[in-house]
């Protein structure tokens, strides 16, 4: 079989998954078809609702920049990120130092 994969613990067949996606998308389309079709085009019902404010023309003013996403994650992990930022110092001598220290550590581990 070209699409069946036996991993030694179980099986993987991609077409089972594709069938699953076809069924699920059929279901999704069905749910969507239950929606209201009686809204009026080209009226205020069509407009984007932005907390009652006027929507600016430039999208840059209403989009969340990528560096702000996962802000909470970053804040929650601040102690780890403080260490990681310090680690990636950008200093070439530091980087060479990490390499030499790692070589020494691996050497000690392999040797004993």
């Amino acid at each position, binding site marked *: 079989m070209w699409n069946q994969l036996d991993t030694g613990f179980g099986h*993987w067949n991609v077409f089972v998954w594709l069938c699953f*996606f076809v069924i699920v998308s059929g279901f999704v389309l069905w749910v969507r078809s239950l929606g209201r079709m009686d809204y009026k085009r080209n009226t205020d019902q069509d407009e984007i609702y932005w907390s009652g404010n006027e929507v600016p023309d430039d999208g840059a003013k209403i989009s969340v920049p*990528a560096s702000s996403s996962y802000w909470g994650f970053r804040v929650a992990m601040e102690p780890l990120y403080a260490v990681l930022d310090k680690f990636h110092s950008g200093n070439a001598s530091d980087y060479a130092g990490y390499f030499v220290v790692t070589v020494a550590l691996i050497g000690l581990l392999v040797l004993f």
Partner: protein
Amino acid sequence: MNWHDHLPAFLVMIPLLGAFLTPFAASFGKTARNAFFMLFMALTLVVGMLLCTATFDGGVLVYVMGGENFSLTLPSGMSYPVRILFEIDAFGSLLIFCISFAAFAGALFSIQYMDRFSGWKRFMSLYFLMTTGALGMSATGDLFNFFVFVEISSIASFGLVAFWRDKPESLEASFKYMLISQVAAMLLLIAIGSLYGKYNALNMGALSSMLRSGTLERVSLALILSVLAFKCGAFPMHTWMPDAYAEAPSGVTCLLVTVSQASFYGLIRVCYTIFPAVTQGGTVGWILIALGCMSMFFGVMMAVVQHEIKRLMGYHSISQVGYMLLAMGVGLLALSDGNSNGTVAAYGLTAMKGGLFHVVNYSFYKGLLFLCAGALYYATGTRDLDKMGGLARSMPWTAGMFAVAAAAISGLPPFNGFVSKWMIYESSFAVHPLLPAVAMITSVLTLASFAKVFQAAFLGPSKAKLVAVREVPYGMLAGMAILTVMTLLLTLFPGWFMDNFFENAARALLDRQGYIRAVLGGM
């Protein structure tokens, strides 16, 4: 005498010839230059594919350089080979498959991507040399020759990372990469020299047959292991990777990914084939697992908070390499648990197959991701995700291909990335339940950061600064399409690839005696 026998020589000869013919071809104008570039890349691809099919049946191709006969490994009654020889088994041809495809796609992409810049002759020569180095690394059967190919590909990549030499960042990235790389290369040479001093042999098969465990061997293994782990970007030594991957032109980054895979090949070859006497104890397996887990976790943690698209992907490369190191470490552990006659516990074989599957997957979808990032840079002139937005409307093809690659790298079923990761989870669970836990957390964070990239770059309202953005030219789309098609093929027919590629490659890696016998004859 059959031309088919000379394929291993052609593999390195064609790109090397291309590198030195480039200045002549470039003097005939732009069209001739581009045609020449693509012709030689296509020839390399064809030779690579032919070599792959030649090793499908589990055979080992041996080619002696500079001998009176290409198949004479032991001239005039010598008991060990003295000449440089190429030795390609199913594992090596797996890497050749990845490298030649990625090199071709990157070249096709670069033709229009680099069109606005000068210095094309140098770019093409260096690109050819880097391909030569990577292909040579996965084809050679000689340790010193391996070092030479490592250096060829490294020096070419220093040049290519610093190709935009008017940008201070690319110079800085190149210098940092070069500094650590040179220290590493010299340590590698010390290790190879020490082995030569003790065993009077540089051939991998001959060394493998003679090697006994001892202090010198342990030190050499530690040096080779850490140097090659550095080259493929394992955690505490990964710092060059996001810099170099981000600053190199995108077509080059696509190839750099596979060059690091060639180093990974060397690492695995050394651990499995040359040093089983030392790796028997299981320490080395655990070192690989530890390096893998650290690379996975810290790589992805750094990636989540990046907002520069190629730097983010560079950090993801570290975490992806972590998966392979984990898988191969588990395989090595299973090998040292098993009997000495080459049998291995079932979970070890699954881990190895999963790891090799991941090598191929990673080469294709990661190359594709970098090409997509390059396309975004080409179209918008920025790599900062904060300044992008709503590009799916103007660049539908790029958005679609990026979505495929992002789903594959995040391990969303039914894409190929899921299958290989799943095999790694299953098999590493047999060693310790914590290992798949780390791998799954990594996978979740990978999905999170690629959701962020897709949202920031392609979705959302259009920005006023980006209204003039158009889809990239067809040549670039074609380069990306090749890798997309390969990713989709791996997704749809994992069983076929498993039976013909990964199963054979894992068996070839385990069949140490077969590797030795191909060089030394019946022993």
